[in-house]
């Protein structure tokens, strides 16, 4: 049974379906919450923690994308505390990978770069780890650069949920974690990859890109995704 609940977000009275997430309710009412792993048309997993919000009466911060709305909930999406956490998260992402905006194909069209800008990050307080990571250029048309991957798993989800191939997955833990094709083979040797390029279209950074692009030349096309998801659902019913 689905019903309608009323709640407050940033002091604004809002009505939402009770199965909706706080993020969805906020978006539907023109309230912006920063996100990175979220993308309309894909399942929500609460991986990046950028959408953390405050809920009155709860000392813990909760990820807005996977927390359902509740009757009389009082949500704050922006505060000094939240800003501090969001800045730290983005700084950690920069420090953990090798993100060099100036020479990246996605310069000017990168969600990590945009987040740094909107959060006012003008330097990293943490030392960069500069891990030695690989670039997989074995595919005929695309490149996977692990240096620029933030492990949002959009590629994993779009490949599984929309394309139905489940070529991508994540291996290992902590700083060793990385995206792999099939059972950790070179992308070009993957038997399940259909070459559909949906993963390339959804990548927020310069980790999955078209081959042959130079600095700042990468652009994505994502408008198809919510429609594709909607059509698949309707056909399935």
């Amino acid at each position, binding site marked *: 049974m689905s019903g309608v609940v009323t709640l407050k977000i940033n002091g604004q009275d809002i009505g939402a379906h009770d199965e909706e997430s706080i993020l969805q309710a906020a978006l539907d009412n023109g309230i912006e919450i920063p996100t990175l792993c979220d993308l309309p048309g894909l399942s929500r997993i609460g991986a990046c923690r950028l959408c953390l919000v405050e809920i009155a009466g709860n000392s813990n911060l909760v990820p807005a994308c996977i927390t359902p709305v509740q009757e009389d909930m009082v949500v704050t999406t922006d505060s000094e505390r939240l800003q501090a956490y969001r800045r730290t998260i983005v700084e950690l992402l920069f420090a953990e990978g090798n993100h*060099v*905006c*100036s*020479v990246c194909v996605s310069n000017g069209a990168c969600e990590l770069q945009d987040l740094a800008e909107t959060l006012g990050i003008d330097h990293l307080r943490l030392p960069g780890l*500069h891990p030695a990571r690989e670039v997989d250029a074995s595919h005929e048309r695309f490149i996977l650069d692990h240096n620029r991957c933030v492990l949002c798993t959009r590629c994993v989800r779009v490949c599984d949920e929309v394309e139905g191939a489940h070529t991508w997955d994540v291996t290992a833990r902590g700083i060793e974690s990385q995206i792999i094709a099939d059972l950790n083979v070179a992308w070009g040797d993957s038997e399940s990859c259909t070459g559909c390029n949906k993963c390339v279209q959804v990548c927020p950074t310069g980790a999955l890109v078209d081959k042959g692009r130079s600095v700042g030349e990468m652009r994505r096309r994502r408008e198809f995704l919510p429609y594709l998801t909607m059509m698949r659902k309707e056909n399935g019913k």
Partner: protein
Amino acid sequence: MTRAKLATVWLDGCSGCHMSFLDIDERLLALAESIELVYSPLVDNKVFPDDVDVTLVEGSVSNQDDLDKIRHIRQRTRLLVSLGDCAVMGNVPALRNTIGGDAVLRRVYLAPDLTNPAIPTAGVPSLLPEVLPVHRVVKVDVFIPGCPPSAEVIFYAVGELLAGRQPDLTDKTRFGA
């Protein structure tokens, strides 16, 4: 009227930030009336003065010479500005951090097809094991990201600093800009 003492220094960078500074164009003339450029790759002064008001630092700290220089400069500067992504982040020079300075030297100077392979030591400063952003070595007062930061941003920031204000760079520049 006493003019503010401005210095600019070029560590491990491509000089692009200095080029962008020069791109301020004719407004440099107006700027020149309120400042005295006391040390810079653009002027002939070989000694860094003792009491500089604002120093713009281009480039990362990559070798022993960069390190000595920036420590020396910090002690003699009121406001130290990290200008551009190399100073702020390490940027392109820091690409070598994934393999380390020694590996880079071996790769370049001991390549098997060279006629006289040898790592140079005389007359060149030794590389630091890791390329560092300026604020990892000395205190930095203002950060101006960008590769390079636009002339507009540099002009604005320098103007604010000379007026005694902290420049607000929100929405004006970014990493890689």
